[in-house]
C-alpha cells in the first residue's frame, strides 16, 4: 500500500509553500486569521480522520478533546495565573487521559451506538464545564490578553501542530499499528479472530487522535484569548464540522481532511463576505446552507470525498472535455 516514498517531493513543496506564504504576500489581518483557521481545521479534521477514517470509530464527540485541550490551557490560568503557553504541553496530554477514560465506556459500543455515545459524552462535558464555575468560570468563560498582536507567530505554531498531526498519521499508517487500524475498520470481529487486540489498538488510535485535537484546543485558547464551554465543546461547530471536513475531503486519506478544511473555510468565507462584497448582502446568510448542500452532494456523488474520488472527478472532467471537442 505504501510503496511510495514516505514524504513525496510535492508534500515538502506544500509545506515550504505554507511556511513561506507570509513572506511572499502581504496579507491583511483578516486573511491571516483565515489562514490560521484553515490550518486549525486541518488539525481537527486530520485527527478525527485517524480515529474515524482509518480505524472506523466514527466519533461525533471530537469537541470533547478540543474543549478539554482548551481548558487544560485555560483552567490553570484562571485558577493560578499559570501562563496559558503551558497548555501546549498539558493540552494534548489531558486530552489523551480523557480519551482513555472515555474509551472505557464508548469502546464497548459499535457503529451508530459509538457515534451516539461519543456525542453524549461531549455534550455532558459541555454542560458540566458550564456549571462548575469554581473551576471554569462557567458561561462567562476565561479571558486572557494574547501575547502577540501580530498573527504570524500563531500561524507558524499551528502550522507546526498541523505538520505534527499529518506526520503522525503518515508514520502510524506505515507501521504495523496502521494495518491493525484498517483491519479493525473493515471487520472488528475478524481482526480479533486473527489475534489483534482490538480494544488496545482502538485506544492507541483514540490516544493519537485526541492528543492532536487537544493541542489544537490549547492553541485555540492561546490564540483567541477567550474560551467558553459553548464555543469549545460545541456539538455543531466543532464535532460535526470535524466530521464534515473529513467527509468532503475524503475519509481514510492523508490529505483529504486538509483539502476538506480548505474547501470549508474558503466556501464559508466567500459566502459570509457575500463574494467579497460583489454579491448582494443577503448572500452572506447562506454560508452554512451552501456548505450543507455541498455535504449532501459529496455523500451522494463522491462517497470517497474529493481526494478519495479524485480519479472519478478527473475522469468526469476529462470525458466532458472530450465530448465538447466532438461538438
Amino acid at each position: 500500500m505504501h510503496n511510495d516514498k514516505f514524504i513525496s517531493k510535492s508534500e515538502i513543496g506544500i509545506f515550504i509553500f505554507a511556511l513561506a506564504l507570509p513572506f511572499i504576500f502581504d496579507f491583511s489581518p483578516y486573511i491571516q486569521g483565515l489562514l490560521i483557521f484553515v490550518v486549525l481545521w486541518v488539525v481537527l479534521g486530520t485527527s478525527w480522520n485517524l480515529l474515524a477514517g482509518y480505524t472506523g470509530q466514527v466519533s461525533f464527540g471530537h469537541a470533547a478533546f478540543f474543549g478539554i485541550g482548551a481548558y487544560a490551557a485555560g483552567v490553570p490560568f484562571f485558577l493560578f495565573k499559570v501562563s496559558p503557553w503551558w497548555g501546549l504541553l498539558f493540552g494534548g496530554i489531558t486530552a489523551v487521559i480523557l480519551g482513555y477514560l472515555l474509551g472505557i465506556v464508548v469502546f464497548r459500543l459499535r457503529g451508530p451506538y459509538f457515534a451516539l455515545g461519543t456525542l453524549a459524552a461531549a455534550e455532558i462535558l459541555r454542560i458540566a464545564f458550564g456549571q462548575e464555575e469554581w473551576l471554569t468560570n462557567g458561561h462567562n468563560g476565561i479571558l486572557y490578553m494574547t501575547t502577540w498582536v501580530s498573527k504570524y507567530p500563531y500561524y507558524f505554531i499551528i502550522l507546526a501542530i498541523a505538520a505534527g498531526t499529518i506526520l503522525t498519521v503518515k508514520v502510524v499508517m506505515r507501521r504495523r499499528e496502521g494495518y491493525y487500524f484498517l483491519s479493525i475498520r473493515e471487520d472488528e470481529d475478524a481482526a480479533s479472530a486473527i489475534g489483534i487486540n482490538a480494544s488496545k489498538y482502538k485506544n492507541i488510535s483514540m490516544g493519537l487522535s485526541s492528543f492532536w485535537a487537544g493541542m489544537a484546543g490549547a492553541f485555540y485558547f492561546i490564540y483567541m484569548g477567550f474560551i467558553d464551554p459553548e464555543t469549545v465543546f460545541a456539538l455543531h461547530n466543532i464535532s460535526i464540522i470535524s466530521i464534515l471536513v473529513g467527509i468532503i475531503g475524503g475519509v481514510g486519506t492523508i490529505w483529504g481532511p486538509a483539502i476538506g478544511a480548505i474547501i470549508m473555510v474558503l466556501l464559508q468565507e466567500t459566502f459570509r463576505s457575500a463574494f467579497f462584497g460583489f454579491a448582494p448582502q443577503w448572500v452572506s446568510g447562506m454560508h452554512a446552507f451552501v456548505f450543507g448542500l455541498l455535504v449532501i452532494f459529496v455523500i451522494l456523488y463522491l462517497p470517497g470525498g474529493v481526494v478519495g474520488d479524485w480519479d472519478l472527478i478527473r475522469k468526469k472532467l476529462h470525458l466532458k472535455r472530450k465530448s465538447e471537442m466532438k461538438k
Partner: protein
Amino acid sequence: MEMFLQSLISGLLVGGLYAIIGLGMSLIMGVLKIINLAHGQLMMVAMYVSWSAWNYLGIDPYLSVVLSVPFTFYLAKFLSKYLLNPLIEKDSILPENQVLMTVGIGMVLVELARFLFTSDYRSVQTSYTGQAWDLGGVSISIPLLIAFIVSLLLTAGLFYLLMKTDLGRSIRATAQDRLAASLMGVSAEKITVLTYGIGSALIAAAGTFFLPIFYLYPDVGPEFTAKAFVITILGGLGSTVGAITGGIVLALAETFGATYLSSGYRDAYGLIIFLLVLVFLPGGLKSLTKV
C-alpha cells in the same frame, strides 16, 4: 410534598410528549437501521409551518396540524427517496454514510429556516397560552395537557397501524429482515420511504402541539434529536411500549433532577442515563420486561 407532586405531574405530562418524539425515531431506527440526526430539525420545519399559518393566516396552531403534518410527511418522503435510499447500494469506506447524510440534511433545513425566518425567537400567543389548572397547589398547564392527550391518541393510532393493518405488518417485516420481507413481496424500498415519512409526520404532529409551549427558533431541533435518541435507546429499539416508558423515564429524570439536584444539569441527566443504559442494559427497558 407539593413540590414532589408538581415534579411528578409535569414529568409525566412532558414524558407523554417525549414519547411521541421517541416513537418516530424508534420507527425509523427499526426499519432504516440508521440514527436520524435530522429528526428534531424536521420537527422544527413543522413548527415553522404552523407558526407561519398562525402568523400570516391567523390559523389556530392546533388546527394547522392539517398543514404541518402532510407538509413534513411529503418532505421526509422526498428526502428519503432521493437522498437516503440511493446510499444503500453505494459503496463507501464508512458504513455510517446515511447517518452523515441526515446531518447534512439537518444542517440545510436549519440554515434554510434561519434564512427565511431569521434567528429570532418566535412564540404563538393564543387564548390558552399560559393557562393552567390549579389543583390544590399543583398546577397543570392546559397546553401541556392537551399535547399529552394528543400524543396518547397518536401512540394508540400508531400501535393500531403497526399491529392490525397490512401496511403495519409490512413495516414490521421490513424491520425484522429486509431481504426476507422483499422475498415475500414487500417492496422494501417503498416501505423505507413510507416509514421515514410516517416517523417524520409523528414528530411534525408533536412539534405543532409543542408550539404553544416552547419557543421556536432555527436551532430548536438538535436538542430534540438528542432527546429522541436517548428515549429510543432507553426504551429499547423498535418498541412502541418502550418509547413510552423511555419518554416518561427521561422526563421524570429531568424534572426530578432539576428539582432536587441541580437545574443547570437538566439536559445532562438524560445523556448520563443514556450512556449508562448503552453500557449496562444494551437492550433498553424493553429487555427487562420481554414485551
